[in-house]
């Protein structure tokens, strides 16, 4: 027993720091979530300071629970995170496999592929929403206008003109609008985070056993079956890691939401909390606790999944 004392003592500063770092904000949030606490209220000025006198019980939770916008925020959070995860993993695997072979200029291609990861999220969002997705001035607007021009040109053409005159005029999608703003976020974050997935999958592919591949070739496995039965299981662990790390990051997306549409149509949980914080700290804290619970549910799922792949 005695010889454990020294290691314990040495660990203490780190443990204490961690406890403070995690526990203090968490307990403050918990406390605020059970009291009435607003920044501005002319009629009830006593609510503007955090005090146990203003105890509200589960009132804040009830209030948030009954807001449609709260459920919409959870839904948006999940849609955005799942969309990004699916796309980054799919693109990540495809690109990693493509660049894992030898071709001239491979080094440069790899560096260029990684570069989106080094762009600041806010800059990334501004670039995408203004230069690429803008329905008039962005690449999207220009491309749609170009296609429409070509089609209207073809309407005049002999023979095929009749066919093309049935085609409608394409109209560009407004990604700042409520219908598509989530997709805009998914797109830009996918672009930014696919390199991360590629990087991790690429290192894993390089450690893949080539003799297993050759054995599979001799066993009559097609390229698809080699991918399905050898490469994909081999990538199981890196996929789990990519999913976990990204899930943690993307549950807290904020800059992209703000820049694309200020939350219209894509308001996720952090953004929703951010709006509440403008005045109602109590409700914001209650939402924060809900967010912690949601993150834990997601984490349990992920840990189960990763635990399963790590066991193998």
């Amino acid at each position, binding site marked *: 027993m005695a010889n454990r004392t020294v290691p314990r003592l040495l660990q203490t500063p780190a443990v204490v720091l961690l406890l403070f770092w995690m526990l203090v904000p968490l307990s403050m949030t918990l406390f605020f979530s059970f009291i009435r606490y607003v920044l501005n209220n002319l009629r009830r000025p006593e609510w503007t300071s955090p005090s146990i006198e203003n105890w509200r019980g589960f009132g804040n939770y009830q209030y948030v629970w009954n807001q449609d916008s709260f459920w919409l925020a959870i839904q948006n959070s999940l849609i955005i995170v799942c969309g990004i995860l699916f796309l980054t993993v799919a693109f990540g695997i495809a690109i990693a496999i493509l660049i894992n072979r030898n071709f001239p200029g491979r080094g440069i291609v790899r560096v260029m592929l990684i570069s989106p990861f080094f762009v600041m999220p806010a800059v990334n969002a501004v670039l995408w929403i203004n230069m690429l997705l803008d329905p008039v001035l962005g690449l999207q607007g220009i491309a749609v206008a170009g296609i429409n021009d070509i089609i209207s040109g073809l309407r005049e053409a002999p023979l095929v003109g009749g066919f093309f005159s049935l085609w409608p005029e394409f109209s560009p999608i407004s990604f700042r609008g409520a219908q598509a703003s989530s997709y805009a976020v998914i797109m830009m974050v996918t672009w930014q985070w696919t390199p991360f997935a590629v990087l991790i999958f690429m290192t894993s592919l390089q450690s893949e056993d080539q*003799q297993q591949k050759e054995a599979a070739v*001799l066993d009559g*496995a097609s390229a698809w079956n080699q991918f399905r*039965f050898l490469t994909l299981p*081999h990538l199981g662990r890196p996929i789990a890691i990519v999913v976990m790390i990204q899930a943690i990051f993307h549950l807290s997306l904020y800059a992209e939401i703000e820049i694309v549409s200020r939350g219209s149509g894509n308001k996720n949980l952090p953004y929703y909390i951010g709006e509440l914080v403008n005045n109602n700290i109590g409700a914001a804290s209650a939402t924060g606790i809900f967010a912690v619970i949601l993150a834990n549910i997601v984490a349990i799922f992920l840990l189960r999944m990763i635990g399963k792949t790590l066991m193998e």
Partner: protein
Amino acid sequence: MGRIVLENVQKTFGEAEVIPPLDLTIEDGEFAVFVGPSGCGKSTLLRLIAGLEEVTSGAIKIDGADVTQVPPSKRGLAMVFQSYALYPHMTVRKNIGFPLRMAKMEQAEIDAKVEQAASVLNLKDYLDRKPGQLSGGQRQRVAIGRAIVREPEAFLFDEPLSNLDAALRVGMRMEISELHNKLNTTMIYVTHDQVEAMTMANKIVVLQAGVIEQVGSPLELYRTPRNRFVAGFIGSPKMNFIDGDAAEKLGGHSVGIRPEHIDVVEGGLWQGRVGVAEHLGSDTFFHVHDTGLAETITVRAIGDVSLRHGDTIGLSPRMDELHRFDAKGLRI
């Protein structure tokens, strides 16, 4: 059926010619062993036959059909790799059944064949384990099982025993030989270990730097090696070589004699001093110096001969067992 013929097969990697054009025939049902020092192109030759490497020129025929352009999976060959190359995420059952599954065989039929292969190879208790949970010898058996379920025209083995410990290696050597006797399928076996070659082969192909030095049965190679390289490579301990004037007196540019063909006698033809003596009980190996013939002459004496380091020893070579070679190293 599995008669494999190589005609003028050549392989170069970029500038380097690893296999100069060579011809070779392996008859149906034969156990052929490619043996040679490390890096001499044995694996490359095997991979050419398997189709994992493309020939630079020449033709490969299996049962008369030209398969040079046929993809590996269509050649009807099964290969066992040095690293076993088992599929780590699949159970033993799935591993063995994999080639059948790829051939779109019925599941019931796959199960039956896997069971059968597993009972031949004593793997029944391990069918639901993953390769990571098996010992080296068991993995080796799984790799062989995966090869036999396909009922191939020929088996290709690339140094399958080199990752096993010595005792296990002897056991597996026997098992593979027995498997060959039972299946009577052509087998091509690559090794750098001449003991494996001698004990298992019907036909040994000795390679050096991609060139076939000699093809023959183990005893042919032992008795009448075609050149100095084969003479030195086959047999353990290695043949003694005598060069220079001493060799001229015995009738060759150089002369070889195997350790087991020199008798230890009082006042023999040659005299020397014992260097290292290895007493194995059944045999004793003497490394003899100062004979005036070569740096060291190795001698095998039957039984435990009680000569020690530094003793004078008399040697009598059996003159009819001498191997004489000319200036080019060819047998006279």
